[in-house]
């Protein structure tokens, strides 16, 4: 446990030193400004989307940037020949991405509450952010690990995320109707946003359970079966 905490704190320190946290906070500040300057109705509508973007898209980009720095510097090699299991190294990285997502969540949802009185259960919201970051970073890692460099990873991720954002456009336009909402929930990004929205409005509990289980399953399946073996291979090959 001591080593895992050391890895986690080290990862956070590294993200700060490499200014990755700085850019993450900068993006969060932009979201905060949007929320503060909006009226209450708009702010409540925007908060789930903005937090969802941070927990989804931003967490992947931050993790990708961090990974390519590390690959370039060969430090994964150095970690491999230490007594720390690779699974813990991966977990520390995911946990640091979750931490960044939670900070952003507290800033955005907190300010919405303070300025507009948009009350929300921060505990449940934190759980949603954790599940969302875990599932999106699992998908993100697959693309990070198959891409040769940061730019090609970014292009791939953007393509996939655009696809994931399609339901977020089709549902409000009424193209995807209520009875087909479960199809929209197959997009992990929409499923995450749906969970976040459920904190501000009443939604179907069946769909809520589906979205939560679906995102948890994504993280639970992709990390051990796809991410871990490939991460290990790349770490060994250097």
């Amino acid at each position: 446990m001591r080593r895992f905490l050391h890895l986690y704190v080290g990862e956070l320190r590294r993200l700060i030193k490499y200014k990755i946290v700085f850019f993450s906070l900068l993006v969060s500040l932009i979201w905060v400004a949007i929320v503060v300057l909006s009226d209450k109705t708009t702010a409540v509508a925007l908060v789930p989307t903005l937090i969802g973007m941070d927990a989804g898209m931003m967490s992947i980009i931050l993790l990708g940037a961090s990974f390519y720095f590390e690959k370039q510097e060969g430090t994964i090699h150095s970690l491999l020949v230490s007594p720390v299991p690779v699974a813990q190294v991966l977990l520390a990285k995911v946990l640091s991405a979750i931490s960044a997502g939670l900070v952003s969540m507290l800033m955005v949802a907190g300010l919405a509450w303070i300025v507009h009185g948009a009350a929300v259960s921060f505990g449940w919201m934190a759980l949603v952010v954790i599940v969302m970051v875990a599932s999106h970073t699992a998908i993100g890692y697959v693309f990070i690990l198959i891409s040769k460099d940061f730019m090609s990873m970014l292009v791939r991720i953007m393509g996939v995320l655009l696809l994931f954002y399609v339901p977020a456009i089709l549902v409000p336009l009424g193209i995807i109707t209520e009875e087909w909402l479960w199809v929209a929930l197959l997009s992990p990004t929409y499923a995450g946003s749906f969970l976040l929205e459920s904190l501000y409005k009443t939604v179907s509990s069946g769909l809520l359970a589906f979205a939560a289980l679906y995102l948890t399953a994504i993280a639970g399946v992709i990390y051990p079966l796809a991410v871990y073996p490939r991460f290990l291979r790349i770490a060994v090959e250097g």
Partner: protein
Amino acid sequence: MNNVFEIRNLVFSYPGKPEPTLKGLTFSIPKGTVFGLLGPSGAGKSTTQKILTKLLEGYSGEILYNGKDLRSFGKPFYEDIGVGFEMPVHFNKLTALENLAYFAGLYRKTIDYEALLRTLGLYEARNQAVGEYSKGMKVRLNFARALLNDPDILFLDEPTNGLDPRNAKIVKDLILNFQNQGKTVVITTHLMGDVEQLCDEVVFITNGKLSEIKSPRDWKLQYGKKEVAVEYLDDGGLRREVFPMERLADQPGFLQALSHPVETIHSGETSLEDIFIRVTGESQNA
């Protein structure tokens, strides 16, 4: 003498490659020695080292580490070993101290790495970001990283590559000091001067196969010519004569040559560079 590693019939193939990279290696690494694993690029040295450091699995054959199957060791194995990579393995935006503190936190026991930085001439630059270090400084920091956990076995890949003679000597002295504590070093390098100064035993690996294991001296005796070449001045001109090494003092020609002003005397000892080329060349042609 106890063997730290005993390797028997080690065969390893990379997925998708038709031919095995290692073709039945059998050798032992005695405890307390500096063991040189030499060979041309792509011969299988790194693969062997990666297997011995448990970075690669899926091999056939047997590897015993301190008498036990290497496969039976988990992550605590890395408490025992230190690995010095050829390429830098540090966070460039962190200082040398921050880097070492980060990696030190992953081990049960660590050395006084500030003292080591002093010995390696990096103490003044300890709070400088590693990205600003010269190549030589990064190589020395890599060495510090390998020693960080006070290991029993040190695996070093080109430990003095890119170092000036003064710093190379510091690193070599540290390696010998490490060995003097009864610890073992496995070294791969292309610098034959280092091999000669450091290694007790040397094995050449070519095309996944091993040569015999010998000390640098024995390799030189095997491949060197048993002769002495004398250059001396005679009638104002330079003359060169070669004499067989056997019963040198009984050879009148040799004694006659020594009666002249001698410019140079060389034995027919060959260099390790030549031996490297001949052994690895012979293996490739075999």
